[in-house]
């Protein structure tokens, strides 16, 4: 939910609700304070009214979660964006309501737990709102190779496999005494059997058909040619490039850093003949992809990870809020 100058008009109604509600609650509290020359407390008229309002809003806020379920969504009560705007501004309105209800005291164990849950829920929500306004723009500008977050590891492994096939195609089979033998998947693939042919892409179903793939033919001068010093490429691929493509930032590869990557690939080119440069360029490009995937994963976690705090603690907050109501009435 973007809250910027462009979208301000859409938020205007709820901003007014927030400002008026905050002012009214403070005035109500202050009026009572002036009348009695003491803070009204949570069990007085003001405390209860503000507490009930705050609690009702918290319940409404919580309704955003079940609304995501298909059955509830089918009721078509308001647009999702309208719900979200109400969620944001009414959620912020609970800050003065709950704060005044608490009479600026932590209270006992239960109310202290509730207060901390509330603070964290509100804090994580505000963080989420800020993140949603900042990170997507950043993602668009800095991660052009963006893919689906859940598929990052899968796509990266694909890249690693394809890269290995390419290395095998241009370097030829590794000598028997070499430490860098192709992985089983690559060794048994059709492209490995046919020198010069590299399969790059994923065999995926389209309707009932299955087997569409993307194939790239190596250029004529490169296909079947043995580049000079193939061991340099093979060595770097298996020690540095492949681990990085597979594991990304989790690996200890220097390719995690763009500057180091440029340097390493420059050194590699210097040790290879010019025919191998397209292959090195491809490797370098795919390493850049992997770095972007890592950056995307970090941003994605920031963009959506707060929900792993916001939602569970909201659930605990609502349950304990009912306990608080029960206890407050029992020991009124």
């Amino acid at each position, binding site marked *: 939910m973007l809250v910027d100058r462009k979208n301000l008009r859409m938020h205007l109604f709820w901003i007014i609700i927030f400002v008026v509600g905050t002012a009214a609650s403070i005035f109500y509290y202050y009026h009572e304070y002036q009348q009695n020359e003491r803070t009204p407390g949570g069990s007085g008229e003001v405390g209860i009214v503000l507490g009930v309002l705050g609690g009702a809003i918290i319940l409404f806020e919580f309704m955003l979660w079940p609304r995501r379920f298909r059955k509830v969504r089918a009721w078509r009560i308001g647009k999702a964006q309208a719900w979200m705007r109400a969620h944001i501004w009414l959620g912020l309105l609970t800050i003065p309501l709950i704060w005044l209800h608490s009479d600026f005291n932590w209270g006992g164990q239960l109310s202290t737990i509730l207060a901390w849950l509330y603070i964290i829920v509100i804090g994580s929500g505000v963080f989420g709102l800020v993140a949603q306004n900042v990170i997507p723009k950043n993602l668009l500008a800095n991660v052009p190779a963006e893919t689906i977050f859940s598929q990052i590891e899968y796509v990266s492994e*694909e890249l690693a496999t394809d890269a290995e096939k390419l290395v095998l195609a241009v370097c030829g089979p590794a000598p028997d005494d070499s430490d860098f033998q192709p992985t089983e998947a690559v060794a048994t693939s059709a492209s490995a059997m046919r020198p010069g042919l590299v399969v790059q*892409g994923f065999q995926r179903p389209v309707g009932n058909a299955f087997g569409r793939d993307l194939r790239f033919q190596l250029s004529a001068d490169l296909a079947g040619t043995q580049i000079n010093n193939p061991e340099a490429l093979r060595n770097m691929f298996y020690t540095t490039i492949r681990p990085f493509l597979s594991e990304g930032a989790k690996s200890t590869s220097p390719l995690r850093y763009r500057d180091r990557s440029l340097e390493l690939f420059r050194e590699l080119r210097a040790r290879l003949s010019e025919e191998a440069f397209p292959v090195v360029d491809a490797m370098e490009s795919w390493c850049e992809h992997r770095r972007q995937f890592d950056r995307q994963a970090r941003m994605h976690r920031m963009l959506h990870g707060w929900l792993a705090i916001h939602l569970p603690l909201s659930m605990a907050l609502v349950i304990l809020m009912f306990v608080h109501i029960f206890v407050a009435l029992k020991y009124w």
Partner: protein
Amino acid sequence: MNLKMTGKQRALRVPLTHHQRKDELVRSRLTWTLIATVLAAAYFFIDLIPNEGGTGDERYSRGPVAAVHATWEKECDACHIDFVPIRSDAWASTDGWLASLLPETAGDDPARASDKKCMSCHKGPAHHSNEKASDIQSCAHCHLEHKGREFALARTEDAKCIECHSDLIDHIGGDSIYPDDPIEHVVLSFASSHPKFRSIKTDPGKIKFPHERHLTAGIKLGERDRGELKLSGLAKHHADRYMKEGQSPDDAVQLACADCHKLDSQDLKESLGDGHHTGIFPLRSGGEYMLPMSYEMDCQACHPLSISPGSKDQVPHGLKPEEVLSFVKDYYLREYLKNDPALSEREVPRRRVPGKTELSTDKIKANKAVAQQVANAEKHIRRVCNECHYFENEEASKLSAVQPANIPKVWFKHAKFDHTAHRAVNCQDCHAGAANSKRHTDVLIPGRNLCVKCHSGRTDDGMQGGARSDCVECHRYHGGDDPLHGMGTKDRVGSSMRKVEEFLKGD
């Protein structure tokens, strides 16, 4: 040949079934939501597990109870009735539809039902006999609990008092208890609108004690006054007691306030030495109030009740006139017999001799002599008594009863005062008129205007204010009419007696 990957190629790498499996963030979100739900529910339901030492509901307490109630920290039921407001000012607790939903409380006003729990130990008598019933609030209205161990429950905030005292006329039921002396109906604070102290308008005392004379060196005012009293003129133990640092026995007696005004009988013991019995005086270790004056301790040194001018023999203080005369007569009879010991050994006939008077000549002579001495002594004693006392019958020439001293033991009838708390201040700073007071009817107790100099908001120059000035600094709500009653209530016995086990459980 370009081996770099296009966006299209990148997209085609993603399997179309990728959405069927939730990603790690969604999975962790659901897992933590489940955990949070279980933990939050467990927090409530853990009460159902039987445990020792409480119901578990103490977890819901909004703070520790005061130290005096710490025994019942875990016994919520000792004070609370489930679902019944403990405070009469709780919203909708006294009237309205919400109050009608409250559980039955055996016919009691729901807003004050919990008071019974308090009053099983505390009496909490009424504030005023003519206060309106509707103004009487529940105990918890004023005595706020769960404010911490050190919180003083009796330290009620001014706002509670001002609820009525800001407009008292609306809160008095029936006639004023001071019909001849209208009370101030608007009191908002001690500094701003507290009335003058009612208790110190006049001095009801009947002891002729001019402070000025007694605070002058030698207890002598001017040349026309009687001779200067020197320390050597006092009995040794009195001289030791009144001798100040650097004085010799030839110096004049110079009394200080503390020579007569004692906070505690322990003070007397120290000043008199171990040889004197002080157990007859009440021991008030608190030191709030001055001990009452006593003739033996405070007057006798300079005002001996000599039986005749110059005599060292004294009449005991506190006797009725006829007892004084009887004592004096016995004294002179003994003296007469001392001068003629043979008289006491003469045999008195068992039976009266016919034709003779009942009294022998010696006896008549003795009676005459003793009667004359008694008459002289009576005149002398009357003069000595008159130095300090008023007689019931001032016109009579004979010794008559003296008027009661009537010096107030405690001056402030409606407030408390602690001398010990003010011990670092010179006596004269508050009792400024004492050194120049010529008449005993002068009221030397300071008024509100002096108190408020310290007991009010602090001024910028630091020369005024800062000391506490809340209502309970001086007043008690329950039984405040008599400060000597102690802890704020006339009846400190609980309404029912219980076994220790029941008491600890709060039953």
